[in-house]
């Protein structure tokens, strides 16, 4: 029983954080939203060199063989820095869903993959820049063709409807479930990072901005709203970490019905809590910033719009609450 990150995990987090902090990710995200993917692809390669894309790929397939805990660390930071691109698809969903070792190896090395998995994931993210585009439906994983761009509230999420091509492989149900759950976990971690970033930036702003003769952060109405965000994020984080432990590849490999049920329940609980906390952070951040937060040129808009998009990405809160409920009603509610 040691429910804190290990020193190695802390080091990994801090070096990835430094790398992203020095990569002007805000400009990268803005260019991406404008259809200029070059800076984003450069960053993609750089992160691939660091092994981010290969985290959950087994060492035998050219991966890092890391656990979902490391994956959650990485995705929290991708969220914090608003890094664009189909990360959930390439680094979480596809490596687990694909049976094809060659494609997994390519993804681990930095190829870009994306996938639509209706009904929860109706569009393939950033299919225009992807090397491989898939459609997961009806028990098969098909190579797919992307349609026209559909705009998301988050300009840096470029969505594409897809149609299945003729090549497909069977999608084993247990693999599809494990892949979906890992994508949910990764999305939850991203939301956590977005929420933390919004809170940090908003606290900084509230300490500087003055109204009626004092810093707005000295007003109780502002303080208590921000305290509530801190509290919500503090209690969302352990759900992500706990779900990551339950999702560890070992237990996936065992994949007993009980452990699959636990995993589904726990990643869904994490998604619900992270979506709620990040959304609270975004609403509070916007309100504390006032009108300036409402503008595109201010960085805050990057995190705020991404939160709104990720709240419903890879399963809406209603879906995930429903999944937790079903798991509780069907079992004894042991935790």
């Amino acid at each position, binding site marked *: 029983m040691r429910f804190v990150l290990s020193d190695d995990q802390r080091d990994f987090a801090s070096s990835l954080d430094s790398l992203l902090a020095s990569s002007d990710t805000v400009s990268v995200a803005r260019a991406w939203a404008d259809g200029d993917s070059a800076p984003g692809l450069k960053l993609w390669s750089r992160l691939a060199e660091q092994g981010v894309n290969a985290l959950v790929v087994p060492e035998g397939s050219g991966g890092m063989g890391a656990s979902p805990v490391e994956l959650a660390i990485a995705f929290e930071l991708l969220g914090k820095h608003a890094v664009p691109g189909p990360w959930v698809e390439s680094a979480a969903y596809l490596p687990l869903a694909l049976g094809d070792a060659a494609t997994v190896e390519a993804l681990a090395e930095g190829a870009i993959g994306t996938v639509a998995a209706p*009904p929860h994931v109706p569009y393939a993210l950033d299919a225009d820049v992807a090397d491989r585009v898939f459609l997961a439906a009806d028990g098969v994983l098909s190579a797919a063709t992307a349609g026209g761009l559909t705009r998301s*509230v988050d300009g840096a999420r470029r969505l594409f409807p897809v149609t299945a091509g003729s090549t497909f492989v069977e999608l084993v149900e247990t693999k599809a479930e494990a892949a979906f759950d890992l994508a949910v976990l990764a999305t939850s971690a991203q939301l956590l990072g977005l929420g933390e970033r919004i809170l940090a930036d908003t606290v900084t702003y509230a300490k500087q901005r003055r109204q009626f003769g004092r810093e707005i952060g000295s007003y109780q109405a502002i303080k208590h709203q921000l305290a509530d965000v801190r509290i919500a994020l503090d209690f969302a984080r352990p759900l992500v970490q706990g779900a990551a432990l339950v999702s560890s590849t070992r237990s996936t490999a065992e994949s007993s019905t009980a452990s699959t049920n636990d995993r589904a329940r726990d990643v869904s609980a994490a998604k619900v809590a992270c979506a709620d906390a990040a959304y609270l952070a975004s609403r509070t951040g916007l*309100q504390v910033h006032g009108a300036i937060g*409402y503008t595109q040129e201010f960085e805050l808009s990057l995190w705020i719009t991404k939160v709104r998009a990720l709240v419903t990405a890879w399963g809406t809160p209603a879906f995930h609450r429903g999944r937790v409920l079903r798991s509780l009603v069907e079992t004894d509610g042991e935790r």
Partner: protein
Amino acid sequence: MDLTLSESELAFQAEARAWLEANVPAEPLPSMDTEAGWAAHQAWEAKLAEARWSVVSWPHDYHGREASLIEWVIFEEEYYRAGAPGRVSQNGIFLLAPIIFDHGTQEQRDRFLPSMATGEKIWAQAWSEPEAGSDLASLKSTARRDDERGGWLLNGQKTWSSRATFAHWGFGLFRSDPEAERHNGLTYFLFPLDAEGVTVRPIAQLDGEAGFAEIFFEDVFVPDADVLGAPGDGWRVAMSTAGNERGLSLRSPGRFCAAADRLVELYKSQLTSGNPPVEPVETHADGVVDAWIKARAYRLYTWGTVTRLADGGELGAAGSVNKVFWSELDIALHETALDLLGPEAETESRWLDGYTFSLSGPIYAGTNEIQRNIVAERILGLPREPKGASR
């Protein structure tokens, strides 16, 4: 106490409804924050004015119908129910015109109001400044006396000016007495946005559209004829209609009732289509019901307010009660719509646009934090906070 309309009110309602049914464009106009949309919205204002629907409560001499407050609310309800276009002229007709009627000279009324009523001239407000935000009295933009030319020179910067990108004229407060502090020594100016020394810079919003602009002033000359009220008296002039009954604090219930009805329709259509929600549609029933109940409450509350105002009462701090309620209702209603849209919520839609716009509700025209202070202090009589620096 009764809620039935009089015969003349019913006739007014019927006339408005018939005209709107016959004339509201079938397809929504393009966004008024684009050049094409701007022109379309201006044309719509002209059409409204021609049938005397653009400023129903104004005097006949100024394109109005001298409608009562109750008739104004009836018209607004019909307007939203008909899904008619947004009013590109709203800052002029709702915020500025009441002040021109009350504090302007006859010459100013005759010069400014007719073209405002027809939509020929669109007005933009210029209240906020980068450092001021909700604290309007801390304005720093200046007006320097120019006795030779018989006017003033404006300098400084205004921001969050809605629709200033395409508008023709602006109105706002400037500090004309550099010695005076806070609410004193401010003067209310009207100025053309193409005047020499004025620069307008659009600001892109969350949704990418330039609904707001910054306005920079560099020795912009404004003649005395374009000062509203007495020099130095600007704060009092501006605040005289801050609790204005037709202004933003008494927002037309039609808007929320129409949106709540659309929300019910969305719920019903998803109940029958089963698409695209992945959980039972009923999961979101409470949100739909609460939005509908609140929209109805807002409508009835407005009828009460309108009756009191017609009896000679004043809106006062109740405007703050109102503003907190409708702005939070507007967000909750749109959040429920996004919940109903399920995995499609993040993609472009009328609901997503409405949601993004609703987020500005608790911020503009005095943040909801300020409004709650007003409710607590002026309605409940709670003591004010100590003055002084934080620690």
